[in-house]
């Protein structure tokens, strides 16, 4: 059941991937439907919160404060988690994290682990590393199970199988669980998953997870979910190994108050998560008796060092920006070539990749601002996208064709004389491309500017415009020409 994980280092550009996905009508219908449903639920629950904007602001302040003092809170967390009986491991990158987890599992001597849905373990491709070491990981989150059994890839950070509909899920279950008579009612599918998973919960004694938050003052680990599978993984096994990004720490229990009000509302349109599990270390006779946390850097401290890109790490992984994004709505998540799709992926992935890969992602946005509007911790995603575009441009060098053109246009805008000359030149240059429309009824004396010439084909990069759109020919007179003439009259 191995699958090729989404890897920014080998992924095609966003444009290439999007082009292929836009041809998948079923996928696009599934994505549109799912994001519409979640957005409608979210909007209703956000509107009922009178203090929503105040909550967002306190969420932003908590997360920004953590990032400004990350070293302090991480060490505080390490002290308190260790005091409570847990073991902390620090991982510089994905390879180190994989090695630590595989080592721990080998030490236990098991060949199976159960998993709670976790983006961090997807990021470091942990399942593949475990499999290479002869350990099978069972995903227990329903959507992750669908992805795993279907040998698919997650397309959303909260609802990873959002691109699949019920009939497609039934087919996957029928095939992989050997249930030829399975129906496609939600209850049938849930029942099949429950039977499949329950046996694993009872048998497997090691669990692997991520975490939503780490609480520095108590050494607490907070995991929220909707299905109860997480609660099973957190209570039944003897060992719990959590792989957590270093940015996930918050200072105090109290800080969870605004964050846990916003996370479920933003993520799934629920007032609170059905399951909120919080472990503060090892308790004899209750829950896992061995707890390990792997604190993962994997590029995060470099993001932290960039003053303008830093706010990316405020993210609490609610996925609201993905549901609100009109680009994601068309392509779904796989186009982003990373486990982090949508607007947050477009800013997070290139930064985690040190901009050595994923340079097309900062451009995968119309800068409409819908993501910023819904973000519960007020990450100004359009601002960071523009910042990253600037970095990409600098990386490409002045001699790139686009760069040369942009520099030439910039020179035009720096002088009124050159600007007027360019306007005249534009009218001449477009002449061979303009087709005048044949009208059966011409109205004599119609205003000059109501030009009836249209351009249906443009060369080079501009051809992207005319693949689906016409362009009206330039009017014979610019505004400034008209204004000058008017002044003389």
């Amino acid at each position, binding site marked *: 059941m191995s699958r090729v994980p989404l890897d920014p280092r080998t992924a095609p550009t966003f444009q290439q991937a999007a082009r292929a996905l836009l041809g998948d009508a079923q996928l696009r219908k599934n994505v549109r439907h799912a994001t519409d449903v979640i957005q409608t639920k979210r909007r209703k629950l956000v509107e009922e919160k009178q203090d929503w904007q105040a909550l967002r602001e306190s969420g932003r302040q908590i997360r920004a404060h953590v990032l400004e003092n990350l070293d302090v809170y991480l060490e505080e967390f390490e002290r308190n988690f260790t005091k409570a009986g847990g073991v902390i491991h620090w991982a510089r990158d994905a390879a180190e994290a994989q090695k630590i987890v595989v080592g721990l599992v080998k030490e236990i001597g098991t060949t199976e682990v159960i998993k709670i849905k976790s983006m961090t373990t997807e990021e470091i491709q942990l399942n593949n590393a475990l499999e290479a070491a002869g350990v099978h990981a069972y995903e227990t989150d329903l959507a992750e199970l669908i992805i795993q059994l279907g040998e698919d890839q997650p397309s959303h950070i909260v609802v990873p199988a959002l691109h699949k509909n019920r009939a497609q899920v039934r087919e996957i279950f029928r095939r992989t669980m050997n249930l030829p008579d399975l129906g496609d009612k939600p209850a049938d599918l849930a029942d099949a998953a429950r039977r499949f998973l329950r046996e694993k919960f009872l048998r497997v004694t090691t669990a692997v997870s991520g975490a939503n938050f780490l609480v520095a003052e108590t050494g607490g680990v907070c995991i929220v979910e909707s299905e109860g599978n997480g609660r099973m993984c957190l209570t039944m096994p003897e060992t719990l190994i959590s792989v957590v990004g270093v940015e996930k720490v918050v200072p105090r229990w109290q800080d969870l108050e605004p964050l846990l009000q916003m996370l479920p509302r933003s993520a799934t349109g629920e007032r609170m998560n059905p399951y909120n599990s919080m472990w503060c270390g090892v308790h004899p006779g209750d829950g896992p008796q061995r707890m390990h946390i792997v604190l993962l850097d994997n590029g995060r401290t470099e993001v932290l060092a960039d003053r303008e890109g830093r706010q990316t790490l405020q993210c609490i992984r609610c996925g609201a920006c993905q549901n609100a994004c009109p680009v994601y709505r068309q*392509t779904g998540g796989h186009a982003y070539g990373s486990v982090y799709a949508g607007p947050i992926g477009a800013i997070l992935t290139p930064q985690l990749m040190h901009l050595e890969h994923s340079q097309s992602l900062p451009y995968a946005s119309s800068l409409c601002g819908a993501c*910023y509007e819904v973000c519960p911790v007020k990450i100004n995603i359009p601002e960071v996208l523009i910042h990253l575009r600037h970095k*990409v441009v600098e990386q490409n060098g002045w001699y790139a064709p686009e760069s040369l053109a942009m520099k030439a246009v910039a020179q035009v805008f720096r002088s009124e004389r050159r600007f007027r000359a360019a306007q005249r030149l534009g009218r001449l240059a477009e002449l061979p491309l303009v087709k005048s429309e044949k009208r059966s*009824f011409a109205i004599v004396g119609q205003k000059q500017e109501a030009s009836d010439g249209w351009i249906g084909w443009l060369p080079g990069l501009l051809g992207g*415009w005319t693949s689906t759109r016409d362009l009206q020919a330039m009017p014979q007179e610019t505004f400034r020409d008209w204004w000058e003439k008017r002044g003389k009259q």
Partner: protein
Amino acid sequence: MKVALFITCYNDTLFPATGKAVVEVLERLGHTVEFPAGQTCCGQMHWNTGYQAEALPLLPRFLQQFEHAEAVVVPSSSCVAMMREHYPIMAERIVAEGGDTSLPERTAAILPRVWEFSEFLTKKLGLTDVGAYYPHRVTYHASCHGLRSLGLGDGPQTLLKSVRGLELVEIANLEQCCGFGGTFAVKNADVSSAMLAEKTRAVLNTGAEECTACDNSCLMHLQGALHRQRTGVTTRHLAEILAHTEADEEAEDALPTEVTL
């Protein structure tokens, strides 16, 4: 009031009728309009595409041209958003690079006097009825920058509702982007076109004859598809609707029609 018009580069070149309409409305309301001749572009295309160094010189240029004005009116919501959101950052950047240290203060001083055309009417002048007549069925497209960055709210619709003869029909998913996004439309032409397809369907579903907005860039995008598909639905900037009066209607009716079959 003495109003300085910042027409913006693409309106100047491609949509002069919008500029004329702005002049007409403001003069009809008793204001004096001036047009500083040295103006060119706000810098949005360069800044948003990542060419920040190329955008920077356009800030002092704008200040030089418009600093004296009592009010600056701009018939393009995305250009105003560019100025409000990025000019302060640009001013700081120029100072950091050893440039003119007076820029941050001068930028902060002028920005409160810069208005998008519809918000100048509704927020600065407190008007809803500007005496327009336009007997057509029209739908309004809320451009993202006007909606989210400027917070225009239902200001433009309020203006449209006061136009005599105009029937305003609401579009589904008003808050969804049309897919223009500046260079996005050519850099990601396929996705942009898919977004546009959804928007043009929404426009056609309203049954409107015309789609209006506070930004010709979105309208150029919509018009491109509406024309390509021969839908017969046209686009027109809000200012052009507000400039239209009974007298225009009579003049148009009086025009001789020549049949050239």
